[in-house]
């Protein structure tokens, strides 16, 4: 099983995301943002960071990078799973691959702390109820209209909710999936909770759930 970590100018969390994927048993490569052939990968990850310095809006410029054309084709063909973490999630909403958009945190500044998450998408995360993961963002205030929230709730596409809403996101949403569950976006950083010396190891549960989902996804498609 092969994974790719896409690197845009300004991406910061590529190294630890690469290490986390390897620790979860995936053969992983780095992918520079003007690379176009990504069909060889079962999982493509857009990691955290400040692509293009977050200028204009977080993710607003990265979404026009050459790799994003092949990412859109990769999603249409259902070839594999696409995971956007923090800045990656923002890029996916700017590209319209996931619903909603992001505003500045309600407190008005950057927040970096460990938060408790309630897992909502039990299909994807099997028997995991709660996760302790780090958040680190200044524009994590997820905004989505009420109609879409109902849709997300009905189709069980909300991955996690913050136990205590740290940034004003509607309905404390911390992560969502697209209609056919092959695009995932989450603001918390699983890759910072995977090593034995990290405060929590719940990040491994996220990556192993992704692995299981790839198997289920490919077998369902075959």
């Amino acid at each position, binding site marked *: 099983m092969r994974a790719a970590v896409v690197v845009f100018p300004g991406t910061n969390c590529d190294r630890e995301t690469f290490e986390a994927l390897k620790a979860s048993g995936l053969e992983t490569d780095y992918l520079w943002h003007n690379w176009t052939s990504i069909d060889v990968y079962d999982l493509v990850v857009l990691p955290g960071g400040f692509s293009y310095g977050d200028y*204009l*809006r977080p993710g*607003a*410029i990265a979404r*026009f990078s050459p790799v994003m054309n092949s990412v859109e084709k990769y999603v249409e063909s259902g070839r594999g799973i696409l995971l956007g973490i923090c800045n990656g999630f923002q890029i996916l*909403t*700017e590209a319209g691959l996931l619903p*909603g*958009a992001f*505003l*500045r*945190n*309600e407190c*008005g500044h950057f927040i970096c702390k460990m938060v408790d998450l309630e897992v909502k998408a039990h299909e994807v995360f099997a028997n995991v109820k709660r996760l302790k993961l780090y958040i680190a963002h200044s524009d994590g*205030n997820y*905004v*989505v*209209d009420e109609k879409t929230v109902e849709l997300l709730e009905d189709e069980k596409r909300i991955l996690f909710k913050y136990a205590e809403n740290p940034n*004003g996101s509607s309905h404390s949403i911390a992560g969502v999936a697209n209609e056919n569950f092959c695009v995932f976006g989450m603001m918390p950083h699983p890759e910072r909770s995977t090593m034995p010396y990290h405060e929590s190891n719940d990040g491994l549960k996220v990556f192993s759930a992704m692995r299981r989902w790839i198997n289920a996804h490919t077998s369902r498609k075959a």
Partner: protein
Amino acid sequence: MKYDFVIHVKFAPNIFDPQAITIEKNLKKMSYPVENLKAGKVFEFSVQAESKALAFDIAKDVAKNVLSNPVLEVFEVECVER
């Protein structure tokens, strides 16, 4: 020919802008009699095109596809006489 444009990007009416709320709260704390403060962005740039109409389309395209996010924001395009 070069045409100059000004693009105003504002939050859509139903969007709750935390920054504007905070600024207004602080202004009131400093006893400035200020109400319903809105914050937005403005971009100025020139477009190289044969005609004004063509330049206007390009400016509108840039505003729609790049400078604003349709989920959150609305925009206005204004051509500024040289």
